[in-house]
């Protein structure tokens, strides 16, 4: 989607009347074949948590538990005819989520399991692009299960492994019992280099409290950004093909028009490399925080709660992607400050 303007109110979802309570949370479960996705899914579904989930699996899925809300789907990714080269969405999800909404009283959340080789972008973009989907559901978190023993090899031989880690809000670093402490530390560093902003859980046989995975509200940017104490640490990885993450902050208020102009052009030009962009912005003259996020070229934004009393109103933006040009991005963001 070619975005020409990103102003408050420009997004259909940005209306003050939007009630989040009515939206069903959706958890996307990604990870390479054999990483432990299905094990985690089975744990979620068998644990006594008193909640009921609908599960959307791909046709190759092997779900061992009896759940009457399992939907078997063919992943059907298609390009939107909107002039945006990387705007792909999951057509099957649009239909299935629409169908599930007709029986929405019957479950508390939806879990989507992707195939091992899936690029998470089309799933995430589906939640930005389709009005009916975004009106009724909310992308709660992208959870990526990573095999501690094999992830370094996967990162070496495929793009998808890095993309799945880059898109994650939560990383389940699984099979930690199969590697030495030194190997585990190396893997952890590598994950952090790709995605500094995800929460990482170490697990054996995908065992962890499911409230660490479900209903995270991780797509709530405020929580994502607040959950990252190492926000300002420098990143040595730049200007290369590897996925890295960068963050910037400015103390002066942001001019919405300048920001729209800058981010619009940036996403148009670099959207293919920018996997995820997230920000919390202090707009000049505005008492509420503006939350911005994008997947490739598709952007979305909305005012979230007001700044807390006494809180320093710092605007922050995070980029996760390839070929990130740190000085250029910093200058661009700093140029958005109100005069």
């Amino acid at each position, binding site marked *: 989607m070619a975005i020409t303007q990103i102003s408050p109110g420009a997004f259909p979802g940005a209306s003050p009347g939007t009630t989040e309570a009515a939206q069903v949370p959706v958890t996307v479960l990604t990870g390479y074949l054999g990483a432990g996705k299905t094990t985690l899914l089975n744990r979620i579904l068998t644990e006594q948590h008193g909640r009921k989930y609908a599960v959307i699996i791909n046709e190759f899925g092997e779900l061992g538990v009896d759940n*009457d809300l*399992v*939907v*078997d789907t*063919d992943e*059907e990714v*298609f*390009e*939107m*005819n*909107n002039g945006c080269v990387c705007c792909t*969405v999951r*057509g*099957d999800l*649009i*239909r*299935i989520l629409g*169908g*599930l*909404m*007709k*029986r*929405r*009283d019957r479950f508390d959340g939806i879990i989507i399991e992707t195939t091992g080789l899936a690029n998470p972008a089309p799933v995430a973009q589906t939640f930005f692009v*389709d*009005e*009916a989907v975004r009106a009724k559901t909310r992308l709660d978190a992208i959870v990526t299960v990573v095999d501690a023993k094999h992830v370094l090899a996967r990162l070496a031989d495929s793009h998808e492994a890095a993309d799945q880690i880059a898109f994650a809000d939560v990383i389940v670093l699984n099979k930690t019992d199969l590697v030495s402490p030194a190997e585990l530390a190396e893997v952890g560093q590598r994950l952090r280099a790709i995605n500094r902003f995800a929460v990482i859980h170490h697990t054996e046989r995908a065992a962890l409290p499911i409230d660490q995975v479900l209903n995270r509200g991780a797509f709530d940017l405020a929580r994502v950004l607040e959950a990252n104490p190492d926000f300002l640490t420098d990143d040595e990885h730049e200007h290369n093909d590897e996925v890295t993450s960068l963050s910037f902050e400015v103390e002066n208020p942001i001019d919405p028009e300048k920001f729209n102009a800058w981010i619009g052009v940036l996403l148009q030009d670099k959207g293919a490399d920018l996997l995820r962009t997230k920000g919390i912005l202090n707009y000049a003259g505005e008492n509420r925080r503006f939350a911005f996020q994008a997947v490739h070229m598709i952007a979305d934004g909305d005012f979230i709660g007001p700044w807390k009393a006494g809180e320093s109103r710092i605007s922050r933006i995070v980029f996760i992607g390839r070929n990130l040009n740190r000085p250029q991005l910093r200058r661009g963001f700093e140029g958005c400050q109100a005069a």
Partner: protein
Amino acid sequence: MSSALSPNLMLETRGVQRDLDAFVVAVRFDRTGRTAAFALGDGTVRLVALADQQTWRTVAVHDGAALDLAPDAAPAGFVSGGDDGSFRRIAADGAVTTIASFGMKWVERVASHPGDKGKGDKAGGLLACAVGKTVHLFDQSGATLKAWPHPSSVTGLAFDARGKRVGASHYNGATLWFVAAKTDSPRKLEWKGSHTGLALNPDGDAVVTAMQENALHGWRLSDGQHMRMSGYPAKTESLSFTRSGKWLATSGADAMVLWPFFGGGPMGKAPTELAGGDGVLCSQVACHPQQEVVAGGFADGLVVLADIPTARILPMAAPDRGAVTALAWSADGRHLAFGTEQGFAAIIDCAER
């Protein structure tokens, strides 16, 4: 006497209504015109005999949500599809039988055709349902005739007016299958993108699909001409041709949008917009089975009739009952039924008095 008519006047004085407490997925009348059926998100179908409209019978049909409903090919009764993977028949007396089961795959679209009335016992009524990428065709008894594969999931399904062809929409276009063909060589209509629904012009010469990108695409079959109809602020969920085939009514804008399929249109012609101006999206349209009249349902629950030639509007039901998600006329054009996502349902007698 007050000159301001209540927008609920028709509903209150000539309608029956119920709160069914589940998403109304579809409403249809059977071919006898004696029974109306509402298919719901709780898997039930509610049957209402028009001769006794105070009695609404609840029939458990699907273990999950009903996803689509059509009149049976037979004179009485209905067929429905559900997310329990079943394609079922509901007799007018409420008896339910299974036509086919497809396991975990959803039966997302169903359609029927009564067959050729001139042929008496060899009427050859037909039933069809879309399950994933396949359209299954059955004879009136429920025996399987064909299973037609498609390159991707089927999103829209319709018989043509004569029951000779079946249209299916999917990614990158639509496919027209010939029911009686000995070897299946369908006509493929191609246009890149995600096509999410389909309607066939009663004149047999146009196929129109709704698209993910808030636009319609059409093909004129006689010469292969493409038609593009765009400008919608939202996706078109509902498409309905008038009986004459002159107009295609559509949802997806803050008015009913009607495209002219005459005088060279819709190419190069502006559509007619009816019942707009409130800034509320039209969510359902249904053309009257005989006259140039269209019913429209809106996202706030408003239901209106519009006379197409004069653009006169007659309100049927006031807003505030949830988005209209189902809307249908009885075959004789006397009764209009509708339902909303909140579970409100009503049948209104529109006969002249």
